[in-house]
């Protein structure tokens, strides 16, 4: 069958899973700067599914698309180390403050400038856990979506056979191309970096990174075009500025509260027979148990 063009949507996120004591400021707020920036976990599951489709259909290409600040180019390099062919970084101050609707508009606008058969996203990102950008981008692209994907089992000219992971079961569906799928964490982990790819892509850079670098890599990148990470601004994708950032975001954050421990007057019970028995008797008498 004909080779497929696969786009993987990936996001760089603060590692909210490891908000340890050192990541909390004295006033109880989260010190985001202290959190490591990582490849969003379910986007790695998404990348793996894309690479498996590429393995199934020789000649296919996997292109990463990420939106974020300049340093999000790290996500693209990481993806290339693991087998992606190239990547695009959507970066512009005008994207800042976008909620999921504005973000999906930006992403869909960028995707529609590219050729694609399949768009693969992670189900959700761990900084917001909304799971909204994938379906909203699919709607804006006018293509069907399959969410909570555990495995793309089969690829042929008619489309994909996909297994979905639901709350208490599974569903198998057949989807035509083009389609957008979002991959669940129960899908296989992403393959590790491939040493050969690390050697090949470790100098891959965006234009901005090149300008900021102390050494001049431009010669090298001119000689080896695969080292160029494409960088797109709002103007490059021809997006409507009004539909981006704060003005394009219908949701507003009214208030943020840190979850701080409310010290509570707990009654301390000694672990001896007498005190445990009297606790149990109390619970029986006030009808909590029994």
């Amino acid at each position, binding site marked *: 069958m004909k080779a497929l063009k696969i786009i993987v949507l990936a996001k760089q996120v603060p590692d909210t899973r490891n908000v340890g004591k050192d990541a909390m400021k004295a006033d109880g707020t*989260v010190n985001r700067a202290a959190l490591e920036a990582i490849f969003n976990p379910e986007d790695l599951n998404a990348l793996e599914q894309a690479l498996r489709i590429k393995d199934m259909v020789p000649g296919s290409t996997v292109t990463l698309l990420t939106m974020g600040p300049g340093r999000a180019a790290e996500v693209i390099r990481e993806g290339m180390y693991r087998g992606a062919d190239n990547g695009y970084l959507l970066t512009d101050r005008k994207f800042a403050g976008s909620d999921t609707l504005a973000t999906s508009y930006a992403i869909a606008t960028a995707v529609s400038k590219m050729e694609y058969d399949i768009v693969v996203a992670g189900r959700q990102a761990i900084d917001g856990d909304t799971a909204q950008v994938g*379906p909203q981008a699919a709607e804006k692209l006018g293509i*069907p979506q399959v969410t909570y994907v555990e495995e793309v089992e089969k690829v042929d000219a008619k489309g994909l056979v996909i297994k979905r992971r639901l709350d208490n079961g599974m*569903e198998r569906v057949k989807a035509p191309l083009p389609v957008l799928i979002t991959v669940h964490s129960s899908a296989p982990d992403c393959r590790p970096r491939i040493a050969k790819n690390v050697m090949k892509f470790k100098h891959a850079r965006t234009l901005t990174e090149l300008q900021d670098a102390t050494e001049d890599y431009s010669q090298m990148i001119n000689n080896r075009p695969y080292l160029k990470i494409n960088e797109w601004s709002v103007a490059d994708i021809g997006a409507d500025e009004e539909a981006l950032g704060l003005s394009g975001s219908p949701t507003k954050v009214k208030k943020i509260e840190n979850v701080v421990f409310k010290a509570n007057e707990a009654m301390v019970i000694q672990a001896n027979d007498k005190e445990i028995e009297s606790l149990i008797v109390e619970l029986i008498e006030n009808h909590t148990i*029994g």
Partner: protein
Amino acid sequence: MNNIIVYCETNGNSVAEVSLELLTKARSLSGQLKVQVEAVIIGNDLKGLEDQLYAHGASIVHKAEDSRLEFYQTLPHTSIVVEIFRKEEPQICLFGATPVGRDLAPRIASSLKCGLTADCTSLEIGDHYEKKTDTTFKDLLYQIRPAFGGNIVATIINPGTRPQLATVREGVMKREETNPVVKGKIKNWNVSEIAKKDDFVIEIIERQIEEKRVNIKGSQIIVAGGYGVGSKENFNLLFQLADVLGAEVGGTRAAVDAGYIDHDRQIGQTGVTVRPKLYIACGISGQIQHRAGMMESSMIISINTDASAPINSIADYVIVGNFSEIVPKMIKYYKKNSK
């Protein structure tokens, strides 16, 4: 017009629990807003389901029936709900934060260009003053949800777009029937007129949905174990305590990951949310993601070797010690003193 609409899921021949929870919540919000609650229900054969919806406060039930809609499918459901919202112009629409709600609501929000907040744990009505434009927005829906891995709680509003859309976590709202039940009206929608042929391009080949085997959400007493329980065998002790108390057993993610207990018993942000009368936490440190799923419990007993475990700060009773010595004593003294 400008009522609150709840998108209701079905499973087989009943309405999903989360949808009834949302109708109950919508009822209390509608009281504040002086509007009515409506329900949307889509499927193949929905005969009789309206009674459950009336019983939870819906005064209008929007029904869309079609033989092709035996199971949920994104595109036709989107077309139908978008059409209903366009015609009925609700001010607020609620969905369960289930795989269905989280698949459907964003597609609808994008189509209507409306704001949507995911996974809310609390909803309130309130005003908002916007400095920049010196405008006060009256009676907005405050959509309250944990974010940033549960480390912060954010209040989100959609001042400028209608309807205000939110998905709400299962189990966080209490379900209650109305008394007396007021019989409402059915409004039928013609699926073939609304859904396009292209809406059916995704074909469901197979579905295997297991009945929920455990029902920790519905249990009044929960004995929960964490990583500190140490092994699958040690969990038997918790099952014994649960057995004598008529309780269910739950666990933390660390206990699930270690294979001590099944995934469907996980409590917390990525598991189920529970609000039992009594929660007995054994060998649980009480990280924020776990607390998110149990802190609404009426009473919490913590059994932990570490007197300064974070869970102790939300507990009503703290027993400092090894659960493997304490739990058998609880069983013994319960047997002795009950009946």
